[in-house]
């Protein structure tokens, strides 16, 4: 049994990932179908859609699909439906035209993504930690590299006793976990996974996300207070200090790309970077690169990740604000943390590192975008799409983990010093300098081009260096992993 499982574990993992992607993709395709159906119906049948409120009837849809099958009208979103699928799809399409349906789907998607991602990230964090310490980490549950470890842990946590402290404030203790978790989910309302993959394309999306980060602190604060535990309280106070302070350099660092592009709408910011690697905002001028760095450090502090993990410093405060929590509520805090980590990484990618675009110019793949289904899928993989954003986000999450297991924790006064005396002046200076740069140095000017090229080269070198180091590590993994565990490596 065990040997069989070990053999099929990797395929199961892969199939699972692929299935998730497909499951997410199908509704998106159907969305597109409904939207283009509206347009087409308007065009072919002199049917005037009255803005957003125009509803398609079932008959409309049926008629349209049949027309599409008969080749009378242009195929919607290049999907050709068979006769049997068309009948089934009619109802789905009818439902999908309503905003509320889409919202429900978006919420389901976001919750699903966050929980899946948190599970993945916890597993991965353990693997990263282990490898940094020349261990293997979870290897058994699920077979291939213990991929189901988090799933098992989750099930365990769900059935664990929800311990409630006698001296705690009953309402606040219970509420705190939700107050921490809901904003972390709320982040994803405005976070675009690609130009179309977004629950609400707010014109103030960026600050909305920032605001959600801010509100999330309250949960931690209340958790610390309600636990009626000195260490929890200290953790909460530290969190409040740190969070409020680091929001300022964070905001300043965000102002730099905002001033450069002149919008707060994240989809617009992303679309401005569609022209390939050298158009990514971080490589536009040196100050944006510096701003990206400041943003990342400040975001690290905002997510209370090491080396800024003072609120939960396990060696000083036991576990800080979540000392007294157990079971599902405890898991909620972790879900929130990993969601915020991903959002920070994704935000860094959107603002500075090409959003959902690949390093290739998106214009090259323009014909694929409107081609048949397989070309669209290929376009999503090669040029732009949510997979790119998630990939970049995961990369930045990985960097956060890497830092956590590399750097020692800093003291609180050092944290505050770094914020007020170093990051803040630096961020202000960068903002000022970028303002002058954007004001005086034109994009097409010699200086602008040179700066762009230099920054691009630096970025490319960094990427290549990371890839190179990774490859080196992979090739030499038997030598690097340590003598005790080498025989447990897969394939040994």
């Amino acid at each position, binding site marked *: 049994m065990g040997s069989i499982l070990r053999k099929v574990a990797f395929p199961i993992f892969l199939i699972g990932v692929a299935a998730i992607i497909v499951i997410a993709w199908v509704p998106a395709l159907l969305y597109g179908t409904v939207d283009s159906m509206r347009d087409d119906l308007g065009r072919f049948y002199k049917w005037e859609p009255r803005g957003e409120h125009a509803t398609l009837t079932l008959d409309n849809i049926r008629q349209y699909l049949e027309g599409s099958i008969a080749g009378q009208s242009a195929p919607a979103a290049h999907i050709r439906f068979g006769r049997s699928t068309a009948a089934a799809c009619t109802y789905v399409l009818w439902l999908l035209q309503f*905003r*509320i349906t889409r919202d429900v789907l978006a919420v389901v998607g976001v919750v699903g993504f966050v929980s899946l991602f948190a599970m993945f990230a916890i597993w991965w964090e353990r693997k990263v930690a282990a490898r940094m310490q020349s261990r293997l980490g979870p290897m058994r549950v699920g077979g291939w590299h213990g991929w189901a470890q988090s799933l098992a842990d989750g099930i365990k946590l769900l059935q664990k006793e929800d311990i409630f402290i006698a*001296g705690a*404030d009953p*309402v*606040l203790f219970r*509420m705190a976990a939700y*107050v921490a978790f809901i904003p972390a989910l709320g982040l994803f309302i405005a976070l675009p996974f690609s130009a179309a993959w977004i629950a609400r394309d*707010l*014109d*103030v999306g960026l*600050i*909305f996300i*920032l*605001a*959600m*980060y*801010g*509100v999330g*602190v*309250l949960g931690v*604060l*209340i958790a610390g*207070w*309600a636990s*009626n535990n000195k260490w929890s*309280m200290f953790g*909460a*106070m530290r969190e*409040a200090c740190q*969070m*409020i302070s680091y*929001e300022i350099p964070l905001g300043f660092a965000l102002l730099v790309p905002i001033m450069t592009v002149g919008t*707060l709408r994240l989809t617009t910011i992303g679309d401005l970077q569609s022209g390939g690697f050298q158009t990514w905002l971080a490589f536009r001028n040196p100050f944006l690169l510096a701003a990206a760095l400041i943003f990342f450090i400040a975001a690290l502090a905002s997510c209370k990740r090491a080396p800024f993990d003072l609120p939960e410093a396990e060696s000083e405060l036991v576990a800080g604000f979540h000392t007294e929590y157990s079971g599902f509520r405890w898991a909620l805090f972790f879900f929130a943390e990993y969601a915020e980590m991903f959002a920070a990484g994704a935000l860094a990618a959107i603002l500075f590192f090409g959003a959902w675009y690949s390093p290739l110019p998106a214009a090259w793949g323009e014909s694929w975008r409107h081609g048949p289904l397989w070309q669209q899928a290929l376009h999503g993989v090669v040029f732009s799409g949510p997979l790119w954003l998630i990939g970049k986000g995961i990369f930045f999450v990985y960097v956060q983990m890497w830092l956590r297991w590399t750097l020692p924790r800093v003291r609180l006064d050092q944290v505050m010093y770094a914020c007020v005396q170093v990051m803040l002046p630096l961020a202000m200076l960068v903002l000022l300098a970028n303002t002058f740069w954007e004001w005086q140095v034109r994009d097409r000017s010699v200086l602008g081009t040179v700066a762009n090229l230099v920054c691009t080269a630096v970025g490319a070198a960094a990427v290549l260096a990371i890839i190179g180091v990774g490859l080196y590590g992979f090739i030499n993994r038997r030598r690097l992993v340590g003598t005790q565990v080498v025989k447990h490596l897969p394939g040994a």
Partner: protein
Amino acid sequence: MSGEAIAFYMLAVLAAGSALGCVIATNIVRMALCLLGTLGAVALLYFLMAANFLGVIQLIVYAGGTLILIVFGIMVTSRMYGEKLKPRRSEALIGALVVLALFAGLVAILWRGPWVTVVPTEQPNSVAAIGQALLGTYLVPFELASVLLLAVMIGAAYLAQPAARNGRGTEREE
């Protein structure tokens, strides 16, 4: 009932409920939590009124800044099992009477008045419009606000520092 109405009533119930929670709660941190509910609901109401920027600012400044400051203040000054600070019953009664009378009066006025209203129009780019207004028509208040914030920063830092350094002397108490 339109979607807007449903949203409004839900948010209104949330806002009013949280506000009433503030009134009823005796625990000060619970009051703060209720305030969070009101603030959030009002922010969403701003979204409903197409004042996106304001809603976000409400969230970031009020919920993310002011409220945390308040909770912070509570943590410094209150104990969970300290004395319960309750008003005298007569005080509460008088207060309730006055406030109810006020509410009744306000509702009566509001209900009666036929408000001359305009059809709401969506600003194409409200963030830009607000920016223009802040740095144009409202430049002077804007600058005054920044000066005020500076003064507040200095004042708060001065007020909150340890008492020994308040005076001009260099001796340290505590």
